[in-house]
């Protein structure tokens, strides 16, 4: 595998952004005749050559179904897929590969926990606590579960900066709280939640903790045990891997006690028409043929990120966000949405008198890809009283020049609407 480039010299761990960019073929293309400025990494990240090659090599050389046959290809594919599981285990600092369940993505991971653990453990009068900054995918599955079980969905509010209000959060924890669902990093605001402290408080009342890591894993080292989580979910495509594959990490004893979610092949020990015995976790939760190439591509992506080094990635992105705030703050009529003290990789803002969608369309003409809209977090938009925001979300391959291009683009938007 091609190793990502790093600079030599006094800061051996710092990223050499230009060399890293060369690993991503798509970053050299143009859009509407302008160089692509890709600042929509919160929606999805681009893929390095190493990932593209891994998926391609698998289909060209090793492809077959897994866990089934004795022939050479099936064994090679099974080994590659199970190796991918071990890569994920190491990446999350999980204790065992049995704790790694491959799913389609964050959304499916949350639905799995709601549908399996939730149905088995939630009853009338019980409560699920979430925060006001959740993505729809960490709201709707709990709403559906609560409606089915006669339970109640409780929401911990945030302040005007987009940070959790701790006393209000604590107030909502009680003996009826069965689960805390919390986003590690908010997709709409970039707020980093104090997950460890929240998890400790939730555990103190006997609740379990699910952490939505979709916007976190690509930006900082995650250690699921140090976080104090019981479940952690993320999507492959937001960490430079393929779409359609993601991970649910769950504590071994919890997964073992949970009933299966979907039935089918690969999740059974034995089947008769009278009675089926289920396989142990994680197979119990992986009915049917999975996204095998996706898992292999995801492992390549995690290897790539690990080789670059998450501390170096976090440091560079921190600098990018700082620079973006500094430059955008120079623009009159621009207001930031989400200014919490702890933030990661996201800058969200609105422009006086200009709809976010309008701004997004003009920026697109300049080759700048941002998200303009509600970011699948309508309650967050409602809280801030805006129909949507313009969101620039960064990855380690973004540059200061691209921040400058964004600033110039925003000024152009304002000129066109003046």
């Amino acid at each position, binding site marked *: 595998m091609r190793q990502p480039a790093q600079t030599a010299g006094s800061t051996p761990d710092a990223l050499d952004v230009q060399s890293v960019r060369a690993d991503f073929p798509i970053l050299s293309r143009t859009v509407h005749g302008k160089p692509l400025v890709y600042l929509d990494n919160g929606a999805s990240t681009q893929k390095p050559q190493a990932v593209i090659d891994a998926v391609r090599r698998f289909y060209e050389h090793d492809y077959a179904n897994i866990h089934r046959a004795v022939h050479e290809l099936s064994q090679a594919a099974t080994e590659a897929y199970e190796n991918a599981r071990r890569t994920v285990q190491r990446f999350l600092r999980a204790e065992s590969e049995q704790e790694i369940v491959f799913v389609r993505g964050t959304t499916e991971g949350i639905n799995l926990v709601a549908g399996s653990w939730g149905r088995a453990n939630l009853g009338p009068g019980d409560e699920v606590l979430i925060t006001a900054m959740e993505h729809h995918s960490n709201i709707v599955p709990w709403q559906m579960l609560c409606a089915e079980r006669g339970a109640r969905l409780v929401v911990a509010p945030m302040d005007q900066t987009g940070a959790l209000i701790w006393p209000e959060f604590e107030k909502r924890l009680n003996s009826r709280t069965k689960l805390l669902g919390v986003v590690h990093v908010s997709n709409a605001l970039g707020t980093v939640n104090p997950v460890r402290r929240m998890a400790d408080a939730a555990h103190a009342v006997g609740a379990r903790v699910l952490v939505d890591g979709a916007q976190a894993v690509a930006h900082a080292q995650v250690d699921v045990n140090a976080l104090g989580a019981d479940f952690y979910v993320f999507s492959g495509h937001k960490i430079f891997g393929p779409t359609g594959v993601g991970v649910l990490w769950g504590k071994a004893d919890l997964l073992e006690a949970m009933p299966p979610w979907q039935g089918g092949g690969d999740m059974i020990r034995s089947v008769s028409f009278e009675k089926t015995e289920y396989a142990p976790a994680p197979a119990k939760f992986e009915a049917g043929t999975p996204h095998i190439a996706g898992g292999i591509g995801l492992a390549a992506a995690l290897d790539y990120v690990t080789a670059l080094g998450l501390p170096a990635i976090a440091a560079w992105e921190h600098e990018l966000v700082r620079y973006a705030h500094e430059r955008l703050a120079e623009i009159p009529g621009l207001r930031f949405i989400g200014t919490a003290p702890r933030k990661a990789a996201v800058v969200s803002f609105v422009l006086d008198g200009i*709809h976010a969608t309008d701004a997004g*369309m003009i920026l697109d003409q300049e080759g700048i890809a941002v998200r303009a809209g509600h970011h699948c977090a309508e309650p967050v938009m409602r809280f801030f009283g805006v129909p949507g925001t313009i969101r620039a979300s960064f990855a380690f391959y973004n540059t200061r020049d691209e921040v400058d291009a964004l600033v110039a683009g925003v000024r152009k938007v304002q000129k066109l609407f003046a």
Partner: protein
Amino acid sequence: MNITERQQAIIAEFAALSEWEDRYRRIIEYGRDLPAMDPAHKTDKNQVKGCQSVVWLHAELKDGAVVYSGDSDAMIVRGLIALLLKVYSGATPADVLATPPDFINATGLASHLSQTRANGLAAMVKQIRLYALAFQALAGRR
């Protein structure tokens, strides 16, 4: 001007603008000039699904012609509504259905405004045609 002439006029107007900035500026001007929509018509029923911004389209039949009105919270989308209304409003249902929105391609707008959810152009055109179809069916039944 009939519906075809109105469409040709728009094509000629935008052909004179060579820079995309100027074309966008003109769309924005159209958006600003779009007459206010009767708030009573801003109902859920009149919301066009499939747009990222909020879009309303309403139509009524007056003396055999379809009179459209519309609005959006986004200005470029308002401008697109204004252009569609300039072509289609006041035409008979049969003329609306017989006239595809050629100006979208001919003005070069299509290359800038992909007909996706982002601006809902395709959804708006579809809704305009649906109204005409409904009025035509209604007239046929009488």
